[in-house]
């Protein structure tokens, strides 16, 4: 039988044993939902409130504040008249605010007592609220009632619609905030995938080595084929998961998400997509509309996932080959921790750098790190949503896949010796020595 057939039998076993696991099925279904939430979050956070309004008793010794306090999603204000000592027993209130009688002349005469931990948002909203009332009262005292209207009329709210200049034509683009969010999500995803599936290759090789299944498998298959079979099998699992995620995401974004839009917001997103949206008339922030527009656009998501797929496969092959070499050379995961740092450090570096690169995607550091194979998957995927030249992406992919060939050659040489070595914890120097054996 030919070599490739045997490798195929190994791949098949590795693949089927994993995709049949319950844990695989559960994470595959749950993750896309989590990802959509993550992608929506920056845009929608400002419009959604998650905390419950607290009921706050107002002890107003000045008599001017309580009537003007506006209830909002953070708090409901009720004027009460109680002695300070009895506050502790009044459990029908979540907190009390005491206003001193000279509040108009001394604005710091406010004290807030809360039953549970105070929240910065509540404090900020309350002080703004009180400040407004005080300002209004002071204006009244100036007897210039029209000042308020004058102030209103000169206020300006600024928000931007952004477009990217591509080939001399302004195309509807994503704002930096949305690109940033997508870039970070891609980078997190890659980091997670490479680490999770890379370590899966390592731990499963350590396990096979330790319970001596490998001794039996090598009697019919070459060590190199076993290693490649394992890498490809686990890699196919990763690809399967990503593909399922893409499909689930597309279905969600194309059909389910629009259902959650109110007709008003849906109309705004549609208007935004055709460039006809008047930001001033929008019911939610322009960023929120952009986020929804992106998530509701299957083509955009498919494009991003296409690149993600290429970088995921390349990155996985590169990293899993290194993990395979380490797994073959040690007896347990603890022994592998020292060697693992050679793999994890570039991985973490790529991840951390990509979060800062998202803020400035065209710096020369960004360009270099997105070409160097050990960081390129994460860094490049962070930059792609911002729109970068295609040749850079292709160069990055070519370098990544070529480096894989080099690394896998070395890993195979280490693996065939390592799987029979037991007991001693090897150093990198020894791995290099093993690679030299005939």
């Amino acid at each position, binding site marked *: 039988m030919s070599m490739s057939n045997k490798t195929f039998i190994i791949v098949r*076993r590795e693949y089927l044993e994993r995709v049949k696991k319950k844990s695989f099925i559960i994470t595959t279904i749950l993750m896309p939902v989590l990802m959509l939430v993550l992608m929506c979050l920056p845009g929608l956070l400002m419009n959604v409130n998650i905390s419950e309004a607290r009921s706050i008793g107002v002890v107003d010794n000045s008599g001017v504040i309580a009537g003007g306090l506006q209830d909002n999603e953070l708090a409901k204000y009720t004027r009460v008249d109680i002695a300070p000592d009895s506050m502790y027993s009044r459990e029908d209130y979540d907190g009390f605010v005491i206003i001193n009688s000279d509040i108009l002349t001394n604005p710091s005469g406010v004290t807030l007592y809360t039953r549970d931990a105070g929240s910065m948002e509540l404090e900020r909203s309350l002080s703004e609220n009180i400040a407004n009332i005080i300002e209004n009262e002071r204006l009244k005292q100036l007897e210039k009632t029209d000042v308020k209207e004058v102030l209103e009329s000169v206020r300006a709210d600024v928000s931007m619609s952004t477009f990217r200049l591509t080939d001399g034509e302004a195309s509807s683009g994503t704002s930096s905030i949305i690109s940033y969010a997508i870039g970070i999500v891609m980078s997190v995803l890659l980091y997670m995938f490479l680490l999770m599936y890379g370590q899966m290759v390592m731990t499963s090789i350590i396990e096979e080595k330790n319970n001596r299944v490998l001794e039996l498998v090598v009697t019919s298959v070459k060590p190199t084929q076993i290693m490649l079979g394992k890498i490809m099998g686990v890699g196919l699992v990763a690809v399967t998961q990503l593909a399922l995620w893409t499909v689930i995401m597309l279905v969600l974004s194309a059909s389910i998400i629009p259902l959650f839009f109110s007709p008003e917001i849906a109309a705004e997103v549609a208007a935004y997509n055709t460039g006809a949206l008047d930001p001033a008339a929008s019911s939610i922030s322009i960023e929120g509309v952009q986020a929804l527009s992106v998530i509701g656009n299957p083509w955009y998501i498919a494009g991003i996932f296409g690149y993600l797929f290429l970088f995921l496969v390349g990155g996985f092959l590169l990293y899993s080959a290194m993990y395979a070499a380490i797994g073959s050379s040690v007896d347990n995961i603890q022994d592998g921790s020292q060697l693992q740092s050679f793999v994890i450090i570039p991985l973490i570096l790529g991840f951390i750098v990509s979060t800062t690169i998202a803020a400035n995607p065209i710096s020369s550091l960004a360009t270099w790190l997105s070409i160097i194979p050990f960081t390129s998957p994460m860094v490049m995927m962070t930059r792609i949503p911002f729109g970068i030249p295609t040749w850079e992406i292709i160069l990055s992919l070519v370098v990544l896949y070529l480096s894989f060939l080099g690394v896998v050659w070395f890993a195979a040489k280490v693996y065939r010796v390592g799987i029979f070595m037991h007991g001693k914890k090897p150093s990198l120097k020894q791995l290099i020595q093993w690679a030299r054996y005939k």
Partner: protein
Amino acid sequence: MENILEVQNVSKHYTGHTALDNVSLSIPKGSIYGLLGPNGAGKTTLIRIINHITAPDSGRVLFEGHQLVENDVESIGYLPEERGLYKKMKVGDQAVFFAMLKGLSRKEATSRLKEWFEKFGILDWWNKKVEELSKGMAQKIQFIVTVLHKPKLLIFDEPFSGFDPINANLLKEEILSLHREGATVIFSTHNMASVEALCDEITLINNSHNILTGNVNEIRHRIGGNRTAFVVEGETGPIESEIKQMGLPVTIETIDSGDHRLLIKRGDSVTMRQLIEIVNSKAIIKSLEPALPSMEEIFIETVNQFNTISHVNE
């Protein structure tokens, strides 16, 4: 006799030590061959080279007269000493997996496996996970997947260790039956009793060298050096002193009947007739027979001799 396997001047070095140093041996077709040697002597390295798992630094291996190639491992069945199975996988699926790696089709593998499982009375294990099996049960599965593809050459590394006597015997009978059907068998073992009982030829590897090779009976006669066992009645002191005077090694023990058993190695300088006359003149001979050394004695003696010589040479 035609050789199924020839190892010619094979050497293999690792950093800091030599696993095999210019080792040669020939394994006749249809024989049961013993590969002996202390731990760490290089046996496993040699077997891995024969199985095309590692490559020798120099020298070559011929299988049925041609240079050993990748595909030849499909004609070899090797049961390693240290072996395991995938714990989470079902027994049947796993056996089919290993059989397919040896080149059998899924259909062929399944039907042959069912035959073997039936023979061993373990058909109801098929859908169990391996982790539910005992060690002995797992070893039966490993044996089956080793021989399933009907290899011409079977290599067993310490096959009987870990088996209870009943299953060890079952296994031995199966191996002998495969041998009768034409397979050549190599045993790599420390168990000298099984070597005497089973093997036609042996090679003793020590410290990466082949230090003794040949037919078991021939070796026992050659190394035995004309040793004779006398059972005598009466005083043995005079015999002992006379024999020692002649420079011949002698050991004496008292046996159950109250008689004494003398083991005398007469070498070439003394004839059998002379020896009998000496013993006969001093005591009453009740019986005498040639006393061939056991393989265990030969193993220990040869290895010690070799180690002393190489020690002196260093």
